[in-house]
């Protein structure tokens, strides 16, 4: 296996930032680690990049132990959260930096930088442009080109899109996936947004309190979250308790005890005798227009439930309405804890 993590741990004082993490990552995979702040994902990626040394465990690259190899000798490169572009240098000098450190002569560096500019789709006249004059999106590309310059085996990404506005982020997410396809390199990416991870990744690992709690392709995480925590990570969902084979006081055949994850899209108003596996009384508290869909907050079953309806159905529902709402068990996911 290309990259293997064996029992990695990092302890700061009494804080277990990384707690016994073991993983195997095949070459060329786009692997994303998702977790809230404090989950240890930053520390983990820094260990892999060589910017921190673990207190226990090993990192093996193509079978060689690189655990204590410092970052400047590892065949890896990191794109930092703040991008960390060298503000006093031009675009060309930034991109060519790794090559300069390798002792490659100016002419050859120039040639390679030109190739990289083309690769990240920046115009050639950016070569001498001071980095401080670039826009946010342009800076991202410079950071990418800089990281690719030394042809590293692995590229690390430390939440590079977290400080970008929504519209640009959506564009860059797609470009990131495209970049992965074009370079064929192994990408290890960290983010706090599961949504972002789903767009780009081959596999996702969910991290919490220093440990990996679920790992798998995006479809699997989406369809079968391993726990309440992972389900809640996916955004607004409704969690209903399941006990004694019942949900909301009604029989729930084939659902194990624990929790039932009900997506907002699964809830619907039951007007005129329509039926559903599980139904209940609800009062509409508020509505929020989200463009083609409308979100409703319902007071029901002693909690606030979130429902989303397409514009057509939403038209008939207003705050203050009381009525029957329900969902089908087939649209839900059952989790143990």
């Amino acid at each position: 296996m290309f990259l293997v993590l064996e029992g990695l741990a990092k302890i700061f004082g009494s804080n277990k930032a990384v707690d016994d993490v073991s993983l195997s990552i095949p070459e060329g995979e786009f692997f994303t680690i998702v977790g809230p702040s404090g989950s240890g994902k930053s520390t983990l990626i820094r260990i892999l990049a060589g910017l921190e040394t673990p207190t226990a465990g090993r990192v093996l690259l193509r079978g060689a132990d690189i655990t204590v190899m410092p970052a400047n000798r590892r065949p890896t490169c990191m794109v930092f959260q703040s991008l960390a572009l060298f503000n006093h240098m031009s675009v060309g000098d930034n991109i060519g930096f790794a090559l300069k450190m390798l002792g490659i002569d100016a002419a050859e560096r120039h040639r390679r930088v030109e190739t990289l500019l083309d690769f990240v789709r920046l115009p050639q006249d950016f070569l001498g442009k001071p980095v401080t004059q670039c826009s946010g999106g342009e800076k991202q590309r410079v950071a990418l080109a800089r990281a690719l310059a030394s042809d590293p085996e692995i590229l690390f990404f430390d939440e590079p899109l977290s400080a970008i506005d929504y519209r640009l982020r959506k564009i860059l997410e797609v470009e990131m996936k495209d970049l992965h396809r074009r370079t064929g390199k192994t990408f290890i990416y960290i983010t706090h947004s599961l949504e972002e991870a789903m767009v780009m990744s081959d596999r996702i690992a969910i991290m919490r309190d220093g440990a990996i709690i679920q790992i798998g392709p995006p479809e699997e995480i989406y369809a079968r979250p391993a726990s309440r925590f992972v389900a809640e990570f996916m955004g607004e969902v409704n969690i209903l308790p399941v006990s004694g084979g019942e949900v909301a006081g009604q029989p729930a055949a084939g659902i194990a005890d624990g929790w039932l994850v009900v997506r907002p899209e699964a809830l619907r108003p039951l007007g005129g005798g329509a039926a559903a596996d599980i139904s209940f009384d609800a009062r509409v508290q508020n509505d929020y227009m989200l463009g083609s869909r409308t979100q409703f907050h319902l007071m029901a079953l002693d909690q606030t439930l979130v429902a989303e309806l397409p514009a057509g159905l939403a038209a008939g529902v207003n705050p203050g309405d009381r009525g029957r709402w329900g969902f089908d068990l087939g649209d839900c996911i059952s989790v143990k804890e």
Partner: protein
Amino acid sequence: MSRRLKAPLLAAWLGVVLTLLYLPILSVVLASLANTRYMRFPHKVWTLDAYREALGAHDTVQLHLTSLKIASVVVLLATLIGIAGALAFARYDWHGRRMFQNIVLLPIFFPQPVLGLALLLSFTAAGIAPTWQTAAFAHLVWIAPIVTLVISIRLYGYDAAQEEAAFDLGASRLQVFREITLPALMPGIISGALFGFLLSWSNLPLSVFTTGADTTLPEWLFSRTATNYSPLVPAVAVIATLSSALIVLLVVVLAQAAKRTRR
């Protein structure tokens, strides 16, 4: 106060302040343009004689040399010490940093003549005769913290992740310092060095007590303000001030030129 009155009133106030600030300086220039041994303004004859005499006097050269020797030593050492100090002040995280920040500032928030006298006492007690070298040391105690502060301010806007990125891209620790840290600090280093030079060149209280037999330009001027007046004195004052301005200008021009050739 109505808004329309406010702006011109404040502008007038600024004018008053600037005038008052520059009157004494203007007075020195005016006084130097005479050739009488006593001060009688307006002068009957306006002349540059005093300047000719000053530029030809051996003393003038000697005074400039002493001031220059001290200032050069101070600038060199204060800059080196200041770079390290600024890194400790604003860049690295370590226990005792807060106390260190306060200690570095103490010589600045301290009456200079008292510092000069304390140093004089210490030198004499230790059997060290005061010379331009002891004066340079005294200047350094006051100026190194100032230079440290100037460079530290530069560091506060600095993204330290740049150093990690450079390391990650293959640079050795020395290369990180040379390629990333130093260039980022350079504007602060240059302005710190220039500040240090000007402050040392113009310093009176520390020099007065710690130069011993040697004399700097400000000291000489101080000793001649009360007695033995001649237009030579204000002329030397003007020359001394212009010399320092010229040196600063030279350094700034050279620095700009260096920046341009490096591109």
